[in-house]
């Protein structure tokens, strides 16, 4: 069966759909244009789906519409109900679905190549298509099993601690080599066993790649899996000669890759060392060392309220601990009262604050913090020297000066906020015992100008608001 090229308008429709997806991402360059961008994305998807349905002979439309309705309903309800703190899990779960969909599509193309127009006259699949399908199913399967593990770790259904198998690098490289070798062999021998072995090995390696990676590195992993889900879509786009899929795959693939790079840079970790895994494990060991007791000062909500009222400028450094304590609304209320009293309040966000890129910004936006009061690390870091108060809430490693000075520290080289330059530092923390993700002590606790506010973050913000209103 020879495949005939689709009419020109169909190719144009897929191209428009691809362009709309570019515009969807382009809109995200500013919150002001982002909602329009999202609508472009929806329109692009509608065009792609309708074009496909119109140009293919549909054996049974109700079945297809039913599948869309079931899936769409589940997706819609989940999207409405999900808490913003749970966003990383949701994204990981969504990645796994893209991965699984790619696996199923590749499998369907293998079983019914004629429908996809990739079979030669003898019913055999074209050799180039075989490579594309092989890569598509392999990347899809890795995305699926990797995302499932990332989901379980992020959702706390599985320990965030890295699981280190002996010889894991050799096992992983061997599996990877076997997958690539089999895909190569697949071009000369179209036996089903090769196809299914590739699939099984890819599921296995996705699992093996993610289990040794610790909780602290999850933002990188989520970004990386985002990238993979794009490459999987691109590989299937090659198989189907579909412009919309290829453009989208390339966009998503680069997006995830760039986000992984940004996250690695923000933690001063190389991508290779993240993939090699085991970060959380080393940290757990180093935190066990006995440290000398150093004097520190404890402050109260009244102290904090008084100092901040007197201040001209306050910079708030929120971390994931704030979100865990659900303190973002109380914090915004505190900022509102201060602003009414004439204090300048800004928020400083570290790229790795939260559990995924940009997570803290969403959590603050949800608490109605205006986005033009929220600043990125490089934009605000020079302002700490002029700030009267640095108010650290639920963050720790991202303000640790050891990253700048102590070469032996596990976080050495990571860009951090210069909170030690502020005139007064308030550090909201549950207790003195706990340490950050990296498990290192923080000199900021013991500085002369630091007052520790030891309490639940939400309760502390509420108490400060009460004192401010006296």
């Amino acid at each position: 069966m020879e495949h005939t090229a689709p009419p020109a308008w169909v190719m144009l429709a897929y191209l428009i759909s691809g362009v709309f997806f570019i515009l969807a991402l382009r809109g995200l360059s500013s919150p002001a244009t982002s909602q329009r961008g999202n609508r472009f994305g929806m329109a692009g998807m509608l065009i792609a789906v309708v074009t496909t349905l119109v140009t293919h002979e549909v054996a049974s439309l109700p079945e297809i519409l039913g599948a869309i309705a079931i899936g769409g309903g589940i997706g819609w309800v989940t999207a409405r109900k999900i808490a913003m703190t749970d966003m990383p899990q949701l994204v990981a779960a969504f990645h796994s679905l893209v991965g699984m969909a790619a696996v199923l599509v590749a499998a369907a193309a293998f079983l019914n190549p004629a429908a996809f127009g990739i079979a030669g006259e003898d019913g055999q699949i074209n050799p180039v298509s075989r490579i594309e399908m092989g890569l598509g199913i392999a990347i899809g399967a890795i995305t699926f099993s990797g995302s499932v593990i990332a989901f379980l770790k992020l959702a706390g259904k599985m320990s965030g601690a890295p699981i280190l198998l002996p010889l894991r690098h050799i096992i992983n490289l061997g599996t990877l080599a076997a997958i690539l070798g089999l895909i190569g062999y697949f071009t000369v021998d179209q036996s089903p066993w090769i196809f299914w072995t590739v699939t099984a090995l890819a599921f296995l390696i996705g699992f093996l790649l993610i289990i040794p990676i610790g909780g602290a590195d999850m933002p990188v992993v989520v970004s990386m899996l985002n990238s993979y889900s794009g490459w999987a879509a691109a590989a299937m786009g090659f198989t189907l000669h579909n412009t919309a899929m290829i453009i989208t795959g390339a966009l998503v693939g680069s997006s995830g890759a760039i986000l992984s790079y940004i996250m690695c840079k923000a933690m001063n970790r190389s991508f290779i060392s993240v993939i090699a895994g085991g970060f959380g494990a080393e940290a757990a060991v180093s935190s066990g060392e006995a440290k000398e007791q150093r004097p520190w000062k404890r402050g109260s909500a009244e102290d904090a309220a008084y100092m901040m009222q007197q201040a001209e400028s306050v910079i708030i450094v929120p971390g994931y601990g704030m979100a865990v304590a659900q303190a973002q609304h109380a914090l915004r209320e505190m900022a509102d009262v201060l602003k009414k009293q004439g204090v300048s309040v800004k928020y400083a966000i570290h790229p790795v604050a939260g559990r995924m890129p940009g997570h803290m910004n969403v959590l603050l936006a949800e608490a109605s913090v205006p986005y033009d009061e929220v600043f990125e690390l490089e934009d605000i870091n020079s302002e700490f020297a002029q700030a009267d108060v640095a108010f650290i809430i639920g963050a720790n490693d991202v303000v640790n000066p050891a990253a700048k000075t102590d070469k032996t520290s596990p976080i050495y080289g990571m860009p951090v906020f210069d909170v030690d330059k502020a005139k007064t530092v308030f550090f909201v923390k549950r207790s003195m015992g706990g340490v950050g993700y990296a498990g290192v002590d923080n000199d900021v606790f013991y500085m002369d100008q630091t007052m520790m506010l030891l309490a639940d973050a939400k309760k502390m913000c509420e108490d400060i608001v009460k004192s401010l209103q006296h």
Partner: protein
Amino acid sequence: MDFISILSIFVMACFVGYYVVWSVTPALHTPLMAVTNAISSVIIVGALIAGAAGGSPTAKWLGLIAIALASVNIFGGFAVTARMLAMYKKKER
């Protein structure tokens, strides 16, 4: 389309993706991930082809399941992105 034309589109799109994504403000990186999730479900095109075709019942069912999975992502991804973007407000003056 021959392989080279497809490859050309792919390579160009990678460059477009690179520049467009670097211009995304870091404040919107989470919505970026959610929306890339939604658009990568354009893989539903392949699922629709499989689900629509006669010939292999197994392939058809795999296609239908893939349609459902991709739909979760499309509706969920766009909806959650819209929900997040609606939260980003400017300062009231």
